[in-house]
């Protein structure tokens, strides 16, 4: 199920703390991935070029250079998914890294279930022909939710949900990147073609409130759109 055409997915783990490296590697190997550990920026760059991994898990505080430098070097030419391991609580930093092209972030400390879920999501979305997500017929499905890109209509089961143009555009943009956190500014840039400020974020949040209502979301229950407080939104998980 996890294996990719008989080969294991290669995951480059860049982390300078030996204990964290040890248990993450063990966890990845135990779940059918090939883990490639690196403990510094230099080593990571070398291993990246020689192994061409399918996924990079990147800690920011590296001894020789900041981890984000590796992210920008990777993004110069590749779309390899990158998951950031970050310290708690700095939304500004999260937004910056996501806008730099990181696919996801995990806050330390994290549990094994959380890490594996993020790894699966990141790998799934990077696959060119995903089983979920965009289907050949121009449709997106997630549970009961169906987005028909050709006719610009949204359904839950059989029932059509009437969205405004803007609401539909937001949904379409989020669904094009399922599982990935889309920052406020990236949504605003795509949907309204303007740069984000307090007013445009509010505009987005108001539209989102309407979308939630139409989707019948309830607070504290897992829905189709996940709130990433202070950062953005994510379709599914």
């Amino acid at each position, binding site marked *: 199920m996890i294996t990719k055409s008989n080969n294991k997915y290669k995951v480059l783990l860049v982390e300078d703390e030996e204990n964290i490296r040890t248990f993450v590697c063990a966890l990845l190997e135990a779940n059918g991935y090939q883990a490639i550990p690196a403990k510094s920026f230099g080593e990571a760059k070398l291993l990246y070029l020689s192994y061409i991994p399918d996924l990079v898990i990147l800690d920011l505080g590296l001894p020789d250079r900041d981890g984000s430098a590796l992210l920008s070097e990777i993004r110069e030419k590749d779309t390899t998914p990158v998951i950031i391991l970050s310290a*708690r*609580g700095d939304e500004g930093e999260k937004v910056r890294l996501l806008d730099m092209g990181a696919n996801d972030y995990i806050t330390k400390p994290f549990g094994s279930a959380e890490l594996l879920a993020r790894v699966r999501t990141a790998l799934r979305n990077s696959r060119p022909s995903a089983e979920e997500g965009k289907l050949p017929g121009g449709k997106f499905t997630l549970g009961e939710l169906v987005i028909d890109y050709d006719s610009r209509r949204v359904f839950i089961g059989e029932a059509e949900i009437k969205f405004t143009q803007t609401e539909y555009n937001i949904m379409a943009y989020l669904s094009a990147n399922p599982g990935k956190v889309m920052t406020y500014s990236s949504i605003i840039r795509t949907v309204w073609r303007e740069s984000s400020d307090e007013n445009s974020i509010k505009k987005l*949040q108001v539209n*989102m409130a309407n979308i939630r209502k139409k989707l019948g979301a309830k*607070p*504290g229950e*897992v829905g189709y759109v996940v709130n990433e*407080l*202070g950062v953005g939104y994510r379709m599914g998980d």
Partner: protein
Amino acid sequence: MNKTAKKYLKNSIITLGVLAGCFGVSLLLHELLQIKGPITAIFVFGVFLISLTTDGYIFGLAAAFISVFAVNFAFAFPYFSFNFAIPENFVSALVMIVIALMTSTLISRLKAWQEIRAEGERERMRANLLRAVSHDLRTPLTTIYGSSSAILDSGDNIDEERKKRIIAGIKEDSEWLIRMVENLLSVTRIDSGSVEIIKTPTVLYELVDTVILKFKKRYPDKQVEIDIPEELVMIPMDAMLIGQVIINLLENAVQHAQGMTKLEFRVFVLGDKAIFEVKDNGCGIEQERLDKIFDGYFALNDDRSDTGKRNAGIGLSVCSTIIKAHGGRIKAENAKDGGAIFRFSLNTTEDTDYDNEKQ
């Protein structure tokens, strides 16, 4: 609006208002009752009031000068003209200026003293917190350190079943440590200097959704009944800190409300305040604990043993610190039908009079 401009406007309004009041009363006394004895005293009182309620010296002094001229012009012989040659007028002028100066000096000193006292209080709280925390960190660390070394050193002689239990203990105690560290980080985020917290307009729904999902992850078998307004509510706050408050309150109910079968979380808007309420139907809170429940740990735990992992005190005092830093209020009480209610309020409008309230 600019805060200093607002302050000036407020002070000016007080000054003019009080002076107009003095003038009006004096005019009444003078014209209707033909009394002029207490007029100087009335203005002296006005100057005193203004010095007392405004910031700095300027407004008190200005009021003193205006009063001198007003009394001299309108209420002292010769009427409706200035005459400073009469010693009586001169003396009353001097008295008013001295009163303005002395009151203002006294008030400034009082404010400075209050500030020092508050600083000392914060310092004491911090020291107590640190002491309590370091003490409590030992218990989970003992489990983690002891358990892991036991498995490493004599793992071969421990059967699988027991090994699993030991490892589960390590996990549980680490989770406790994580929560503790989250709380401490929240407090340091506020306590680092006098930097005011940064408030961002936050959608109430998104906050509640995020917090409840997090809570359910921690306590999968606990049900929370949620009731929040249908309409879009935006509240300026540090969302991470307020999220911490809600989690702490819910967690407090789970850990301490014995016999609880129902946990409710409600938010409603009243005027320009959003009221958050966590209500359980457990055992309630003893009356003598109620008053000190947010004061921190130390006050509650004189009688504790070393066995319990009671971070309740810390969790609640963190709540109180966060809410106070937001300029809101937090309160605990017992419900009439049993159980405890924790309630806190936040302003829904950006501009708060927090600066003035703080003093």
